[in-house]
Every structure is written in structure tokens, then in C-alpha cells.
């Protein structure tokens, strides 16, 4: 830069990593915007967007001989920041070449700052595993950290629970609880894809746990080999943030609804028969619940099970993957969810229809009728 007395010193990411590892005093200054910083940064970096540098650096780093490494996304904003700092009299200033993008590409560890100022670390293997999530502005580091911290309970490891739990495990849901008391049968395998022919005869929770852990060792799978009952439902659901109802009978569906309402937990509901599926989200407070929509189950003669009525094998795949989608959105707090809307799917006509649900003010579970029962 002829005519300019300030020469920017650049530093390679490997050299920065080495400085930090050896414990050499280094102040890291992240000059990106707050939303960039929040989606992932170097551990211990000060967030100081470029526009604020001149105003705030002397308060944050009063000693002008302190070694300072500035970084941005690719190394341009940090180069300009380095010039500003040198002009202000800082003697040891570097701009990190290639910025945070190069830091990530090189496989160095990084963290996501949490709202209370603590950082949740994401290892380099995780950064690679979830790279496609991290690319999405709606997820990023902060969102992936939420998924890794989330606790989701799948009621049933059958047709719906199979695809739901597989995709949730792949997405990095930190804790997956699976409730089921059945064993794997040959006739399940036409649709229950979390199990294999080799696991026939095994408890479904064991078979599912093996498959899910093999898919993603980050996931802690909690096996709950029992049938949900009025006695155990509250205790089982209480440990989880989101409940996924993939059960195969009405008694369990009403139990899940009532327990989740009492605990204030959202339920992602799906049910299937033949070529038809239904999906909705029951999320407590003010929205319709399962009993608002269907106050009573059909009499037994009008409600054949999948075993009796038959079901297209791929049908629970469609509905289960939609349940996983709604669960992930709820955890991340993004998009519009299906609260108050029932999605009805017909595989034969390949048609989705959306039906508006209404809260029943006299509902025995969530309305004025509660307590009467």
C-alpha cells in the first residue's frame, strides 16, 4: 500500500490456533455483526462489530501492547479493523486470514455463545455431521445447539415412531425417549423401518436404540419398555420437551393428551389407516386438544386396528417424517406449526387437505368440562 504508513499484518488460522493452544495471551475480537457471532464464534472472542471498534476498544482492551487478533467472516472487515486499531496506537494487531469461514474449513473447534454468555461447544466431528443444518440461517450453530439440548419422547416404536425417531436422531436431538412394550415381529417390517429382520423377537425399544445409536452416537436413547398407563404417564412425559404420539390405540392417545395438557407439553399427533393419515399439533394453552376434536373414541366395531384394516407400508413414513419436521420446528421456534389445523393426507389421490380445528369451551380435558370427570 504505497503512501500508507500502516501495514496490516495477517495471521494464518493455524497460527491463531497454536497461539491459543500454547496459552499465549491473545485477545480475540469478532468484528462481525451480532447475528453472525451468535451462529458460531471462536471460544472467548469479544463481540465488537466493526462500527463499534473505535468507540469501545479502549474500554475493553486498555493496554495498547496487548496482542489482538481480529477476525470476521472472510478477512476483509477484520483487515480494516486492524488498520483502525494500529492507527489508534495498538502495537500488536493481526487480522485472521480467511476469517471464521477458513477457521471452520480447517476443522478448528468453535462454539456457539448462549444467551447467558456461556458457550456450548460443538466438536469438529459434529460441525461436519450437522454442516447442512449449520448452513441454514434458520438453524445455524445456535439452532443445532438447541436440537442437541432437546429432549423428545416418541410414544411407540412402530410405523410412525420408526421414521420419526430415525430423522430426529439424524438431526441430533440430544435425548430421545422411546416408549414401547412390544417385540419386533416379521409382520412389522413392511413399515417399521427402525427395526431389521435380524431384530425379530427383540424388544422394540432395544432394537430401535441400537439402530438410532448406530446412526448417530450423539443421541442418548432412553429405552422405556412399558405400556403407557394412567399411573405412569405423567412421570414418563415430565422428562421431555416435546411428545410425539405414534401410538396404535385410542386409550394411549387419550392418555397422552391428558398427561401432556397437565404438564403443558406440546404433542405432535399423527394417526393412520389404509391410505389415509392425519397430522396435527396439540400445544396446550388456548388451542384445541385431542378431546376437543374427538371427545370420544369410536366404538370398537367401527375402529379396526392396522392389523385388521391394513395400512400402506409407506404411509406411516410420510406422516412420521412430517411429525419429525413439526418437532424440529417447535424446538427451533421457526415457521408456522399445525396448532389448530388438521392435515389430512390421502395417498391414493395424493392429496393433502387442511381442516380448521376448534377448541371446545366445554372440553372435558382442557375446557370448563375439566374437573367434572
Amino acid at each position, binding site marked *: 500500500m504505497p503512501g500508507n504508513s500502516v501495514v496490516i499484518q495477517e495471521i494464518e488460522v493455524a497460527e491463531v490456533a497454536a497461539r491459543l493452544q500454547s496459552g499465549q495471551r491473545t485477545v480475540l475480537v469478532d468484528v462481525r455483526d451480532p447475528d453472525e457471532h451468535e451462529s458460531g464464534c471462536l471460544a472467548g472472542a469479544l463481540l465488537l462489530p466493526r462500527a463499534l471498534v473505535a468507540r469501545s476498544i479502549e474500554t475493553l482492551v486498555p493496554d495498547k501492547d496487548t496482542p489482538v487478533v481480529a477476525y470476521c467472516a472472510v478477512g476483509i472487515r477484520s483487515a480494516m479493523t486492524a488498520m483502525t486499531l494500529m492507527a489508534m496506537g495498538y502495537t500488536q494487531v493481526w487480522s485472521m486470514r480467511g476469517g471464521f469461514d477458513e477457521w471452520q474449513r480447517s476443522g478448528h473447534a468453535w462454539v456457539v455463545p448462549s444467551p447467558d454468555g456461556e458457550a456450548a461447544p460443538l466438536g469438529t466431528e459434529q460441525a461436519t455431521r450437522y454442516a447442512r443444518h449449520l448452513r441454514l440461517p434458520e438453524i445455524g450453530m445456535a439452532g443445532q445447539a438447541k436440537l442437541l439440548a432437546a429432549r423428545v419422547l416418541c410414544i411407540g416404536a412402530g410405523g410412525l415412531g420408526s421414521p420419526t425417531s430415525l430423522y430426529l436422531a439424524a438431526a441430533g436431538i440430544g435425548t430421545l425417549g422411546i416408549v414401547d412394550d412390544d417385540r419386533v415381529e416379521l409382520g412389522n417390517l413392511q413399515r417399521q423401518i427402525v427395526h431389521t429382520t435380524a431384530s425379530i423377537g427383540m424388544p422394540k425399544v432395544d432394537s430401535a436404540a441400537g439402530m438410532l445409536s448406530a446412526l448417530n452416537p450423539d443421541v442418548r436413547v432412553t429405552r422405556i419398555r412399558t405400556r403407557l398407563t394412567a399411573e405412569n404417564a405423567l412421570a414418563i412425559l415430565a422428562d421431555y420437551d416435546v411428545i410425539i404420539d405414534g401410538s396404535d390405540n385410542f386409550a394411549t392417545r387419550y392418555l397422552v393428551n391428558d398427561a401432556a395438557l397437565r404438564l403443558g407439553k406440546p404433542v405432535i399427533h399423527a394417526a393412520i*389407516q389404509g391410505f389415509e393419515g392425519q397430522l396435527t399439533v396439540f400445544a396446550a394453552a388456548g388451542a384445541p386438544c385431542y378431546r376437543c376434536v374427538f371427545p370420544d373414541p*369410536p366404538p370398537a366395531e*367401527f375402529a379396526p386396528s392396522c392389523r385388521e384394516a391394513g395400512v400402506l407400508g409407506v404411509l406411516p413414513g410420510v406422516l412420521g417424517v412430517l411429525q419429525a419436521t413439526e418437532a424440529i420446528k417447535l424446538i427451533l421456534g421457526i415457521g408456522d406449526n399445525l396448532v389448530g389445523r388438521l392435515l389430512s393426507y390421502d395417498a391414493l389421490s395424493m392429496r393433502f387437505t387442511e381442516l380448521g380445528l376448534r377448541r371446545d369451551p366445554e372440553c372435558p380435558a382442557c375446557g370448563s368440562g375439566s374437573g367434572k370427570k
Partner: protein
Amino acid sequence: MRVLIPSPLLSYTRVREVAASGTTMAELLADLDRQFPGIRHRMIDEQDQVRPHMRIFVNGEQSFDLDQALASSDVVQIIQALSGG
């Protein structure tokens, strides 16, 4: 008008979508029962109430009232609670 039939009632209609007519919900249900004898009883109880495991939607909005006026352009969808998973 178009009427969408739920899986558990396909034993009456064989097909998922049928045509039926009526200027009110009550008339529509009567016409359905003429075409598919017995189907009304599966949806409506002896007190003329929609059975608690059946729901009827007109153009995507829930309908509880058998006196509700209907137009030939309306789409009526019938839903039954399903338990399969």
C-alpha cells in the same frame, strides 16, 4: 357437491370421493344415505348429533349444525378418528 369419505367408511362408498346434493347438511346426509344405505348412521346418532368420533368440515371449516346451508360448489370432508400408528 364433492364429498370426501374417510377410510373407515369406504366399505359403504368404495371410493374416496363421491358426489351428493342437498341445500343443507341434513339433506346432504339424507342423499348420501340414499346412495350408500347405512352411512348416515355411522356419522349421526339417534339425537341427530354428529358422533363424537366423526367430524364434518365444509370447505375446511368444522360444521356441527345439520341445518347449515350448503351450496353445490362446497366441498364436504368427513373425518373419523384414526388410531393406527
